[in-house]
């Protein structure tokens, strides 16, 4: 009950600020929180990255192993994205198999990587039709202070950029760097009436999980979109969000590349 009252108070505060065209933490409407990226912190993983997006923290680890290719892509590696919203990260997460929220998160991150062709899967074939590299991208939420999705997407591509293919461990020649072709950036906006707030914090999300995620590749193409939440989106707002997402994605990508020396 007190929890509910707190949410209501936060909500009122966010909305009243919005009426003055302000965000509660003073950010501009299209401004991300500070992004900090540390890669390679899990030595046992093939690649890893810890991303802090304000107080939101996500750790992504990459494990690789040989496996059978999909029948329709016999000469291509396989990427599997999985997200665990463990109860450590938020009082609202519960132990157990992935729920609809973590499944949606993993699938949207997956689409950004897949559709931007960020990983060159054709270079992950060991023996066509028989054996290819499987890349497991495991998203492990640590602290949910809002917008876990963008933090997960950034951590995933950063971890992939940090990945060495462990060929020698499997007697398959020398290790080599995972071939990366693109750096997709996902930009999530909270939609409130006719306004939108990029990279919403948890306090801002107290008004509802009504978001639009737009993932952009390095050529300003949109590679994935996901409207999430029970709201109606106007056409004009959709275009504004797409425009802003492209703009914001460039900054985030630049920031990411400055912190992750690669590509």
């Amino acid at each position, binding site marked *: 009950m007190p929890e509910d009252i707190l949410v209501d108070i936060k909500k009122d505060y966010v909305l009243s600020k919005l009426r003055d065209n302000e965000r509660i933490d003073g950010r501009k409407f299209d401004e991300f929180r500070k992004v900090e990226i540390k890669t390679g912190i899990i030595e046992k993983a093939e690649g890893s990255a810890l991303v802090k997006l304000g107080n939101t923290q996500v750790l992504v680890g990459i494990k690789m192993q040989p496996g059978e290719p999909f029948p329709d892509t016999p000469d291509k590696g396989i990427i599997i994205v999985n997200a665990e919203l463990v109860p450590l990260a938020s009082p609202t997460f519960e132990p157990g198999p992935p729920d*609809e929220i973590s*499944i949606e998160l993993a*699938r949207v991150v997956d689409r950004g990587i*897949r559709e931007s062709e960020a990983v060159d899967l054709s270079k992950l074939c060991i023996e066509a039709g028989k054996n290819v590299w499987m890349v497991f991208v495991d998203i492990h939420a640590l602290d949910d202070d809002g917008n876990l999705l963008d933090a997960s997407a950034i951590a995933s591509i950063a971890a992939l950029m940090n990945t060495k293919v462990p060929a020698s461990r499997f007697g398959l020649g020398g290790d080599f760097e995972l071939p990366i072709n693109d750096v997709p950036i996902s930009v999530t906006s909270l939609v409130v009436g006719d306004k939108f707030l990029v990279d919403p914090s948890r306090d801002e999300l107290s008004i509802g999980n009504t978001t639009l995620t737009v993932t952009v590749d390095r050529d300003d193409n949109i590679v994935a979109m996901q*409207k999430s939440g029970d709201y*109606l*989106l106007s*056409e004009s707002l959709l275009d504004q969000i*797409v425009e802003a997402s*492209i703009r914001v994605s460039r900054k985030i990508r630049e920031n990411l590349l400055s912190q992750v020396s690669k590509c």
Partner: protein
Amino acid sequence: MSRPDKFIIDGKRLDGRLPDQLRPIKIEVDVLKRADGSCYIEMGKNKVVAAVYGPREAFPRHIQDPSKVVVRYRYNMAPFSVEERKRPGPDRRSIEISKVSKEAFEAVIMKELFPRSVVDIFVEVLQADAGSRTACINAASVALVDAGIPMKGMLTSVAVAKVDGVLVLDPMKEEDNFGEADMPFAFLIRGGKIESVALLQMDGRMTRTEIKEALNLAKKGAMEIYNLQREAIMKQFVEGGEENA
């Protein structure tokens, strides 16, 4: 199925359609006795049936919301609906589709009218083709009307794909599998006009301009589907009236 060399030849798609043309659609209302509302739709080779139960008491109790109705949506594929038999039970794809479809309906159902209750929307994909989620939303929307659930308007869904650099309406399987992008929409249509977007997903590669064009193409398709939905409901209303007379 393998990738075709070209998707559009002489301005026509592999199945002979023009880029802005829908697949054939068939809609039947009130096809089930037990459900409070139901609808069967064929959209291309998709064959889907939707049932609505409710508003009814929400159970277990802790899911009840004292201020509004709870909406549940279950998208389920029959094991025989696809080429290779699908194991029964929800997979990750079904769970995601159910989530975004539920949220689209939550945005249009007059939720405040039925506090502490639940409206269950069940859609079964009996045969799957490209765009089964859009067919299901269209069926569910009609089933909700059939069940008498008050909504802000009709929800109508259609996808747009990009193949050979061209945007095409209501993609078939080849266009979906091997195309450059796929973008399903659902619109709220009120008073015969498209008001806003209730569902939106995209994967592939599109420019900002293409997204705007895709939206316009989807709107054109949605209006055509909307007219068929309306027609089917009217027919049922008239015939149902006759039957009861």
